[in-house]
């Protein structure tokens, strides 16, 4: 067994005393132009206020640069770069695992699982940050959270890897309307207040949901999460029309989680800018503005909460960029492995992070994993990137 990866007994793990970390996936796919360009930004709070408070990496990339740069042949270089997919699931796992890998939907890997066209149910082969943290420290499951959008059940798969030394034992929990519904429908069926038609519909819906996320279908959510959903139900009811919608919902989930669950590490997977796939530029720019507003709420909440104040590091990073194709009416309609879709940025703010620093060198998205490990005090041994030393004070 590799040094530093010896499995400690669960009871021996020390309690975690380091800073909390909130990873904000500024997704799904945003260009530098609309986020960190001085004149064209739709995220003014991020660019004009937050960057002053931390270390800013405006030239982060998603690129297997060593081999790519080593190749003198332009065509081979492009081919190498294009082997890395620039999309939401991949970007999330690059951030969480610190490795660049090609992922395929589990339906194409296992015979017993139905394939999904354009599916993104990816199983990470290297451990995620949550697994590193929980393996090193005695952090309960409900305090490592991924907050997902309601129309992205495939992202339920990113809570743990299939690495034999980590895996489900150290998984994070997921907060999403998908999870809420899977809890709610079971609760409604258990309460026995539905008529026959409703019972049939809920049973079928529950079956479909469990088939989508086959890995934890049989496992109950922790009691703290159940209490969270009970409170959510008390506030917003059963019909799904009263709570916030879209990425605003993720902000609401995150804020409520901070109050009641006090996660030590939380990842918020914003994604609505990706609606520009269907051709409306305003979905992209409004999506960015909504995330920016969400950031303000999160920063304000952290500063107002004694558990989080002066003890929380924000890591804000896009999952991927977007195309910049001047030959299209909407140049940023997609993000399929073009040069511009590999160009992103990152911002780290909080205790132990240098303030007001702009690092003008090219860094990699996978560098974030070891950097977060360095901040939180664990070693992301299987991550391949480096530590962003300029950020650490």
């Amino acid at each position: 067994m590799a040094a530093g990866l010896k499995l400690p007994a669960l009871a021996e793990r020390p309690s975690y005393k380091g800073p909390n970390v909130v990873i904000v996936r500024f997704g799904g796919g945003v260009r530098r132009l609309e986020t960190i360009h001085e004149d064209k930004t739709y995220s003014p709070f991020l660019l004009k206020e937050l960057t002053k408070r931390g270390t800013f990496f405006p030239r982060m990339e998603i690129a297997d640069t060593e081999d790519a740069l080593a190749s003198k042949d332009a065509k081979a270089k492009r081919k190498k770069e294009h082997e890395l997919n620039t999309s939401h699931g991949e970007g999330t796992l690059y951030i969480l695992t610190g490795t660049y890998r090609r992922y395929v939907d589990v339906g194409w890997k296992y015979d017993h699982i139905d394939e999904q066209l354009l599916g993104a149910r990816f199983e990470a082969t290297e451990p995620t940050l949550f697994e590193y943290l929980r393996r090193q420290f005695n952090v309960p499951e409900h305090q490592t959270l991924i907050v997902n959008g309601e129309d992205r059940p495939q992202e339920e798969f990113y809570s743990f890897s299939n690495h034999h030394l980590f895996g489900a034992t150290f998984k994070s929990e997921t907060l999403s309307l998908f999870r809420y519904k899977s809890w709610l429908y079971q609760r409604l069926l258990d309460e026995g207040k539905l008529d026959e038609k409703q019972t049939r519909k809920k049973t079928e819906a529950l079956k479909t949901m469990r088939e989508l996320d086959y890995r934890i279908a049989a496992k109950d959510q922790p009691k703290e999460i159940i209490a969270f959903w009970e409170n959510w139900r008390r506030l917003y009811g059963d019909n799904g029309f009263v709570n916030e919608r879209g990425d605003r919902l993720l902000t609401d989930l995150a804020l409520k989680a901070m109050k009641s669950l006090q996660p030590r590490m939380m990842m918020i997977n914003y994604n609505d800018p990706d609606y520009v796939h269907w051709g409306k530029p305003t979905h992209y720019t409004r999506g960015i503005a909504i995330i920016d507003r969400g950031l303000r709420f999160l920063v304000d909440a952290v500063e107002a909460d004694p558990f989080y104040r002066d003890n929380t590091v924000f890591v804000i990073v896009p999952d991927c960029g977007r195309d910049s194709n001047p030959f299209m009416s909407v140049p940023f309609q997609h993000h399929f492995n073009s040069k511009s879709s590999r160009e992103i940025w990152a911002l780290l703010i909080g205790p132990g992070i240098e303030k007001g620093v702009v690092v003008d060198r090219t860094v990699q998205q996978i560098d974030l994993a070891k950097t977060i490990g360095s901040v939180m005090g664990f070693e992301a041994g299987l991550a391949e990137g480096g530590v962003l030393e300029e950020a650490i004070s």
Partner: protein
Amino acid sequence: MLEPAQAKRIATPPPPPPAGPAAKPENMLRRRVLRVGAFLWKWLVGVVFCMSWLTAFMVVGWTYRAMQRSAFKRWWKSTHPNAPSRFRHSEWAREQRQSHWPNWLLGNRERPKGPRGWFGGIVANFRIGFLGLFNTTVLLCIPCGLILAGWHYGWDISFNKIYEQSTVGATLGFSGMFLFVAVMFYLPMAKARQAVSGDWKRFYDWRVNRRLIRRGTGGLAMLALAMLPAFVVVLFIKNTPFLYAYNPEILAQTTEEQFKILESHWFSTGFIVFALYLLLHLFAAHIYAGAMRRCLRRGELGPRDLAPSEFDVLDSLALIDGGPQSAGSPFKSWLLSLPGRCVCGTIVGLSYLAVGVMVLVAQFFMIHPIQGFVNQPLLQSPMVSYIPFHLSGKTMGGVFLEFVLATVIMLLIGIGGRLAKTNQRH
């Protein structure tokens, strides 16, 4: 309603044209070269005119004139099955001024002297094209508009997650698609009738057009099936600039150079699109010609149902009663029967539904805002220059002005025509 003078019938069909003297080989070669040159010239001009909204009216008009010639040719051939000379050499074609393909700029070869002859082509192409596109737009604007509204509203609902109104977007979209398919049952034959009759009002002659459609369902089904691969080709062409995102050398060019790259892309692919547009419309005219004969032969249509121009042409070929019965096959008989028409109608409906779906899928890969929904080059205006505004420097206002200018030109043509008639009377 026909004037009594127009109702005269020719008792016997005209005699076949006498065979002319044998042409010398070098003359034949010269003529062939000239004909190929003329063909290439007309093709080239057509593609050039497909590059803007204003000149695309000319393409519609020229195509309608070619459709007229195609139908006339089919009728003439049906009455001259053993003619030694070709249609273009026939006296009848000369009388009808259909010996040659229409010109883009000049009047036909039989044109009168003076300005009317010099600019007869431009005026005819523009006038006929404007009227043709106007009528097509009348029928397609609502379904295309509904599809556009459904797309935008539907995705607004998804983005904002206002699922309480989820049925609105879907209803708009499905209604638009349903209407589109319904219109496409009618549109090809109506366009062909307008083109061949030379009378824009015949586009709305529901009663007669319906009967033509019924007698032409086999051909219309084949036309609908032919639309499928044609649309695949055109939609692929429309979307290929998406691939330029992966060529760093092209992306590194200046805006002016990128504009030229895209301009040449649309120009070179315009040869394919224009050819497909023309072929599909000529096929529609061919179907119309056959359907008209069948209707006349069966007595479902009579002289009073025809436009004066249709009557004159058909009468001069002794086809008012449909002409001699051609040897029909059992398959053709089945096509004209009720079960056959039902099968053909199903094929037509499913084909155009597939076309509508393909258009939407293509919009996902590369959106052409508004234009991609409300104008399909193979059905409406064949304008195929999809250069984004940020490269071309155009604006929506500029596009609108092109249509305003087209309307003004049409008004001037109309006024000019009336003045010419008034002068003639005096």
